[in-house]
């Protein structure tokens, strides 16, 4: 095994991790805040992909992809906020019902996409500047994959800045840490919930756009990523943004490096095994939210 091949696989690992980050961040945000598992999250990715397809039909050319990301972010975000207001907020005290209801929504969205766009899938034409590869040493790095990594870094950076620097971000962090107390301080926690659900869905929408660069957009496109996204959230420590990022990179690398030795399906088995073993030794995940104040409970 030569060094270039190994480096290539590591690059692939990071590139896959970038997609997992975009797919898992929304899940982690809403789970961290509301303890809600959104089974329709994969379909929000799918909606983002189709929005990308539609946008690029209307705005072809080199900048179409950026317009697509904006449209997908807003469209998927509104879909998420609507889902929260119409369904999730009514079921907050019933986690199992939320699971079933959002699963129902995922089926409806899949069938809806099948009816509108057909079952075979459509493809998004990536702009020409994403077609090539940048060669570093002997290693060609596909531009599309570099772009996806850049998008993931930009989204992570943007979210971190938003949560650290803005007043709304402060309220989100407060609700995340102690919901009942935040409410008693005058924070409208339901509004914060709807906002974060929408924001998480918007990020998933951007995830859908980058997925569309890698392969055909089908009504099931979200399904192939969502299981791993759930794994990432669990491994990351249920709700921590840093934990989610680290977990996505770990899973991406394990999957890519396992593929050096075994085929793709078996690499997935090994990845699952890795997550199970990791949680045996560290059940709280990568980052556990813990402190003196919470330990006193």
């Amino acid at each position, binding site marked *: 095994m030569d060094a270039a091949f190994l480096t290539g696989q590591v690059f692939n690992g990071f590139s896959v991790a970038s997609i997992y980050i975009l797919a898992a961040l929304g899940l982690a945000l809403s789970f961290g805040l509301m303890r809600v598992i959104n089974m329709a999250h994969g379909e929000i990715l799918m909606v983002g992909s189709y929005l990308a397809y539609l946008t690029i039909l209307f705005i072809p050319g080199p900048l179409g992809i950026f317009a697509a990301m904006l449209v997908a972010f807003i469209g998927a975000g509104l879909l998420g906020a609507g889902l929260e207001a119409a369904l999730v907020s009514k079921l907050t005290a019933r986690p199992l019902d939320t699971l079933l209801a959002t699963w129902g929504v995922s089926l409806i969205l899949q069938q809806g996409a099948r009816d509108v766009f057909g079952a075979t899938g459509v493809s998004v034409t990536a702009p020409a500047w994403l077609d090539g590869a940048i060669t570093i040493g002997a290693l060609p790095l596909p531009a599309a994959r570099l772009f996806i990594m850049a998008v993931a870094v930009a989204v992570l950076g943007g979210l971190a800045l938003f949560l650290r620097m803005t*007043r709304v971000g*402060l*309220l989100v*962090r*407060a609700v995340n*840490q*102690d919901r*009942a*107390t*935040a*409410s*008693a*301080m*005058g*924070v*409208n*926690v*339901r509004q914060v919930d709807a906002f974060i659900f929408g924001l998480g869905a918007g990020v998933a929408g951007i995830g859908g756009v980058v997925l569309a660069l890698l392969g055909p957009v089908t009504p099931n496109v979200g399904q192939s990523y969502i299981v791993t996204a759930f794994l990432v959230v669990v491994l990351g420590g249920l709700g921590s943004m840093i934990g989610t990022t680290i977990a996505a990179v770990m899973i991406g690398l394990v999957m890519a490096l396992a593929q050096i030795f075994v085929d793709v399906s078996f690499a997935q088995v090994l990845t699952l095994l890795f997550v199970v073993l990791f949680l045996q030794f560290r059940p709280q995940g990568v980052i556990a*939210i813990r*402190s*003196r*104040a*919470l330990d*006193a*409970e």
Partner: protein
Amino acid sequence: MTDLINLRSVSAAYGKGQVLWDVALDMKAGEAATVLGRNGVGKTTLMKTIMGQLPVSGGYIYVNGEEVTAMGAYQRARAGIGFVPQGRHVFPHLTVSENLEVGLAALARKGFKGPRKVPDMVFDLFPKLTQIANRKAGVLSGGEQQQLAIGRALAGQPSLLLLDEPTEGIQPNIVQQIEDALLRVRTELGVAILIVEQNLDFAWSFAERYFVMQRGRIVKQGKTAEDSAADIAKLVHV
């Protein structure tokens, strides 16, 4: 004059277990009152019910004459109720100044015109908070956290402050500071205070009225000036 707060035959329950029975309680602006009783008689439940963290299962709650029974905690905070919960409940991963800023959310009330910043008097009451402004609340000592929790509630400029055992588990020299600060909150700011307190001596000297609870009911109330603390102690202690 309209009561600042008025509870009429309030009941509350955790699931099927009823904890508060037919509680009536009223306070006027600027008053200080204490809720006394043994552990488990429903004092904390009463505070959570007034704050809106626990929904009532019966009865009515009014703040300044307006019915708030169906309102959530955030709306009651905006109606002017400040809360210092038992166990302090500071936001552990936020800094001291961020914790205080969250308290400003209560200022999103109708007719509030002043600046949305933490009032200077918070730092005047608790000078320590200035020194530790950038530290995470989770690593502070119990006494520091308690000062922060009170400061955070005051940042929302409440007209009624609810305190649930503010001196529990705090070292004695800090207890004195907290008690002094609460006296100033009352006299200088004119904020009404309802306090659950195990230290009967302090409660008695601080409050002008008292409510004694047993098994989820208020069984006796009166003025601290007219009754003897020793008699009440018999009701409160085993």
